[in-house]
């Protein structure tokens, strides 16, 4: 278990993190969302010892993360950075060895990763000679090369083309299947929704929503009814005293109930108003849940 427990952090009067707590289970892919400046990077940097929390701690298997533990973590910083003039393979080997691998294992791991990324032929080139997209892949390889027990990746998908996204997703899924917890931040919520089994939304310095995507849906489950009566202008819904209409357009009415158990009453009223084509509680997208959570 990777536990973030009550992290607080402020820079002067600016409170960045205010009681941030969440847990990433082994084999879990945890999507870390939040607006720009919400504190995602700060949270990750605290875990990597690059910033110090004012209060709270980060633990891995009940042990506070120290340098020893950190060597087993693969980290990709928000601000990418490797040695520009150092050959790619040599560079990956160096990082693998700094993380504790012996030289043979480091070489083997670096070669395998580069070959897997289709960069095997570039392994002797200096990093700066590669295209930006390929440099991004090497950066990912640097986080993965030591076969880490935990992955903390800050915006790993930004800058990748769709093929790169798929390849990285496959790679992460494979590591996850071996029990590696993966924490990654992303602005691409559709991606998070597709890949993650758990999501945390950071807003106002605290986790406003956290859990599996299904759990979040559950929480939002009985919020909005969607009723489709082709040809209707939605007037019928506005006359219901116990419902609040969010929108009514092209026969599609979205409404919220003060008391969700009265959904059958809404159905009756709808049937009275016309021929009901669709009726049901709406499944919110992560984007909507995100907007909801951040706005709250």
């Amino acid at each position: 278990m990777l536990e973030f427990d009550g992290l607080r952090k402020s820079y002067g009067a600016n409170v960045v993190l205010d009681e941030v707590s969440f847990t990433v289970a082994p084999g879990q892919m945890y999507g870390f969302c939040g607006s720009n400046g919400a504190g995602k990077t700060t949270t990750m940097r605290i875990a990597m010892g690059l910033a110090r929390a004012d209060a709270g701690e980060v633990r891995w298997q009940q042990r506070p993360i120290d340098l020893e533990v950190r060597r087993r973590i693969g980290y990709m910083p928000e601000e990418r950075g490797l040695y520009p003039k150092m050959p790619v393979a040599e560079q990956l080997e160096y990082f693998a060895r700094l993380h504790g691998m012996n030289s043979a294992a480091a070489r083997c791991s670096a070669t395998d990763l580069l070959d897997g990324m289709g960069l095997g032929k570039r392994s002797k080139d200096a990093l700066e000679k590669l295209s930006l997209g390929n440099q991004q892949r090497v950066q990912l390889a640097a986080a993965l090369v030591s076969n880490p027990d935990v992955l903390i990746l800050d915006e790993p998908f930004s800058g990748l083309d769709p093929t790169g996204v798929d390849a990285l997703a496959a790679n992460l899924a494979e590591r996850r299947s071996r029990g590696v917890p993966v924490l990654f931040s992303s602005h691409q919520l559709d991606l998070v929704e597709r890949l993650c089994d758990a999501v945390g939304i950071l807003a106002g310095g605290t986790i406003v929503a956290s859990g599996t995507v299904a759990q979040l849906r559950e929480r939002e489950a009985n919020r909005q009814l969607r009723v489709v009566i082709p040809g209707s202008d939605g007037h019928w819904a506005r006359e219901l005293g116990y419902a609040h209409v969010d929108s009514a357009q092209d026969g599609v009415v979205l409404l919220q109930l003060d008391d969700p158990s009265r959904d059958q009453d809404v159905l009756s009223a709808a049937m009275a108003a016309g021929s009901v084509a669709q009726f049901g509680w709406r499944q919110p997208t992560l984007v909507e849940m995100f907007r909801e959570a951040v706005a709250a």
Partner: protein
Amino acid sequence: MSGSDRTASLSYDRTGDVRMSSSRVVSLIARREILTRLKDKGFIASSIFIIVLIMGSVVFQVLIQSGASNVTVGLTGAPQGLSAAIQEQADIFGLDAEVIEYDDESAARAAVQGEEIDAAVIDGNSVLVSESLDDTLGAAINGAVNGLALARRLVDEGVDPTILQPVSLDVTALQPAADDAEEVGEKALVAFVSILLLYTLLIFFGQFIAQGVVEEKASRVIEVLLAAVRPWQLLAGKIIGLGVLALAQLVLICAAGLGGAIAFDILTVPGAAIATVVQVLGWFLLGFTLVAALFAVCGALVSRQEDLQSVLLPMTLILVAALVLAITAGQNPDGSLARVTSFVPVLSTMVMPIRVATGSVAWWEIALSVALMVLAIVVVVRIGGRIYAGALLGKGGRVKIKDALAAERVS
């Protein structure tokens, strides 16, 4: 990553893991520094330039010294004893004369024309030269010829030859020099060449260390590094890595320089010169550690190579001051300026070797100077290490030392 089957085949266990002791981490970092520099064309070119520069100055010394003091004189039809007299006279004038006897005048003339010899004395009464007769050599030959002629005439007149034995002067030194003057001179020469070398290498490697630190900050690789290593390990690895390279260069230059100097007879007392070189090497180790740490800390304060020179300027000026003070100390090794500065860390690196070579230094003075140097290294590595660690993660322009000390540091 398109071949995820490839990575899937990797075993998950990290059996290749080794225990990461600090010395292991530091040696990995040092190793990278050495390998990277050895592949860096700029570094290799600069190194060769420095070696050529130092060798050039040694060769220059050889030319100057050999040109001034060595003369070759040819003789033909000379009266008996002239050869010895010329050598005696030349010695008085500070010349090292070699005398070659020729069978006849034409052979001597050919030797002068071929510039094999500086002058030829014919029949003990005329001199042949190529262009003009060197004043000192002329005086020496003149003195020898006239002295010999005078002695022969006196003997011809019946004077007892024993009367002509020169009176030997009894020399009493009011302030006897501790060492033989020649030995002191040679030690001073070696010390000067050595500290010039020391100065060049300190500036050169200091720059490389600072550039390396800025490179890691500018490229932001520092975040990836600090996730796995401690700042002091990074600092130590850099200093040791470049220190090994610098020491290798220094030993190479010293060995070649010393060997060359002994081979060309600039140094006739190699024992003393070698002792001086060993002493300078010792000072180099102390000085390099301190200066490298200071340069690294300065480098950590900026994020761009363009800003580096301005933060390095104070350090560079201190080194220039040390060189100037060391040269001054060579002229007055026991003056109070030399005495005081030979205890001040950084300055002492260059002033103390000169004082030891040219003046009289008590053993406790050397011990105190070394102790102060070691103390300074401890303080700089402690406080400088904190500034380094605090400044490493700083971004943008220049980090103030005060802010770096107050900044949060990674553990």
